[in-house]
């Protein structure tokens, strides 16, 4: 478990002896380093790869569905956990990208890899939206709670607006926005293939695609946060004043982190939309907007691995509570949230890591 602790004294210095790429994914900003962690990581991926062979189709599809959401959580971890700016409105970008995917694919169909183009355009539009909003926020020096309120307002305005677009005049090309009932009829993701496209319904192929994307995204973010750029983000979170006095334009860094994080929210939005062939304003309302914050806060926002694992754990627990908890699901969810916030302020995963290492130390002390 020690391998899950943040890189400490010796590793920081020995970092220079590592191969370059190892140094990138292994930096001080992420929990987990050294051979034990990476062997564990490889085993986890291995397990994830063979998982479909042992699980039933629903479980695989359901896991794929969970994976859709993790990107948004990772994005929020970057914005909130690493940069220290709480965005309460990631669902605005989620929805924006989802609707964009719908508009593109309904109008241009799924052939010739158009769904992948739709994915890229969706993510691109959400990045653009985030750049506009982020510019207004960070260059306007809005921070703290107020940042949360403005971003929340944004997503609520968007949701309220979309809810009343039921009429047929609200259409972009062939794509009807559909009001509160949402937009339907978009194709799932497809991969162009000789002899006909492969449509990725929520089954094993989609699972593998998402798994691959997630691993890439996770490693990519690890590289990012452990890079010079990530150093600055953490510096801004820890002490924005000092960071600025070391010559960094902190607004620019905050903006870039916000755009990347929102792009990931957009990616989640596209994946969710393609998965269920459906997107609606209820994905952007207050309840939906609070969810990513809960995943990230409960998991442990200051670390990508904690966010990743925590999000999957929370999604799984909440869904199982819904399935087995009947009436009491919400009550138990609420209690869990309160307990985690009060007793594990750093989040579930870092809290557990700390607990285990403390127990281990005590054991070592005894022996």
């Amino acid at each position, binding site marked *: 478990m020690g391998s899950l602790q943040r890189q400490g004294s010796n590793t920081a210095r020995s970092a220079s002896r590592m191969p370059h790429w190892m140094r990138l994914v292994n930096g001080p900003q992420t929990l987990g380093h050294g051979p034990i962690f990476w062997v564990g990581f490889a085993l986890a991926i291995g397990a994830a790869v063979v998982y479909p062979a042992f699980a039933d189709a629903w479980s695989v599809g359901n896991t794929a569905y969970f994976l859709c959401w993790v990107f948004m959580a990772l994005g929020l971890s970057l914005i909130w956990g690493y940069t220290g700016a*709480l965005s*309460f409105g990631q669902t605005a970008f989620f929805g924006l990208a989802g609707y964009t995917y719908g508009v593109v694919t309904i109008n241009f169909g799924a052939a010739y890899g158009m769904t992948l183009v739709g994915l890229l355009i969706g993510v691109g539009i959400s990045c653009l939206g985030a750049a506009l909003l982020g510019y*207004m926020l960070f260059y*306007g*020096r*809005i921070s703290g*709670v*107020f940042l*949360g*309120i*403005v971003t929340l*307002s*944004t997503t*609520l*305005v968007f949701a*309220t*607006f979309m809810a*009343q677009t039921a009429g047929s005049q609200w259409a972009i090309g062939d794509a009807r926005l559909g009001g509160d009932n949402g937009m339907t009829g978009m194709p799932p993701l497809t991969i162009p293939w000789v002899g006909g496209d492969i449509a990725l319904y929520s089954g094993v192929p989609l699972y593998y695609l998402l798994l691959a994307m997630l691993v890439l995204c996770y490693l990519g973010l690890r590289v990012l946060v452990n890079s010079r750029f990530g150093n600055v983000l953490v510096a801004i979170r820890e002490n924005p004043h000092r960071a600025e006095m070391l010559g960094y334009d902190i607004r620019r860094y905050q903006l870039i982190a916000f755009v990347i994080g929102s792009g990931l929210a957009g990616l989640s939005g596209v994946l969710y939309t393609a998965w269920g062939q459906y997107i609606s304003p209820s994905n952007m309302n*207050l309840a939906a907007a*609070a969810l990513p*914050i*809960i995943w990230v*806060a*409960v998991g442990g926002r200051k670390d990508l691995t904690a966010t990743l694992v925590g999000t999957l754990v929370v999604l799984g627990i909440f869904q199982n509570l819904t399935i087995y908890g009947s*009436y*009491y*699901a*919400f*009550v138990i*969810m*609420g*209690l*869990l*949230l*309160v307990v*985690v*916030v*009060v007793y594990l*302020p750093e989040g579930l995963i870092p809290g557990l890591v700390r607990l285990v290492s403390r127990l281990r130390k005590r054991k070592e002390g005894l022996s």
Partner: protein
Amino acid sequence: MEYIHFAFTAFYQFGDAFAFLVLSAMGLAVIFGMMGIINLAHGEFIMCGAYVTVATARMGVPLPIAMLCGSLAAGMLGIVLERTIIHRLYHRPLDSIVATWGISLILTQGTLIVLGSSMAGISTPLGSFSVGNYSYSTYRMVLLGVAVLVLIGLYLLFHHTTFGIHSRATIQAPHMAKAVGIDTGRMYSLTFGLGAALAGLAGALYAPTISIVPTLGANFLVESFVTVVVGGADVFLGTAPAAATLAVIKAFLTGWQGQLMGQVGLLITVMVVIRILPQGLSGWLLKGRT
């Protein structure tokens, strides 16, 4: 005559919106504006006030007393929650989002489990009156009156009573307040309880006019946050002018472009205000004074 009717109509609509914003925001203004706790369970305090009011009124208790009971019950609930959970979160306001969200889930669903999915309501008292061709609900004018009274009452409470002064001192400079002998822990509890009681009062006052369901608090949440954010930290100098400004915007947009624009207009106002006046209206008003 036409003009007088028109003027009264405008006044009534403004007053109605104003009362709703003031009453639903007051509790939050104390808890979020003053104490900095982002209380997503605000709606559930309102729900608590409404439920207790309806339940006691249906047991035959006179309505005003039932409303008082509703408000007190919410206040009590607030104090209990502060003592058990909230007081651990003062130094990390962002985490309070998650905790109060959890509390909100527990209270809403708990109410559903214990009291069922809905509750029979009570009638709006006091009937109606007419001006020109229009008839109006008398009770809603009473709500306006109560809103103004609550504002005045809070002003007096915070500026002319020992509790109010100690509470403000505690929130402005907790260390110094401790050093002059104020039990700041108790002040935090009481202030939070006051905020909860005010939320409960909003629920109590609106209980006769709305559906009594466990999720009723959600109706109030967005509007109250909007008002408090526009208002800024000062309960009196912030919430009152913010509610007045927003009421004008809302009444105007709703009357002109319908309810949708009324809603959207409110949210856009918040974004604009935060951009221009990061400290809210009260920050701006206070700055002008020094």
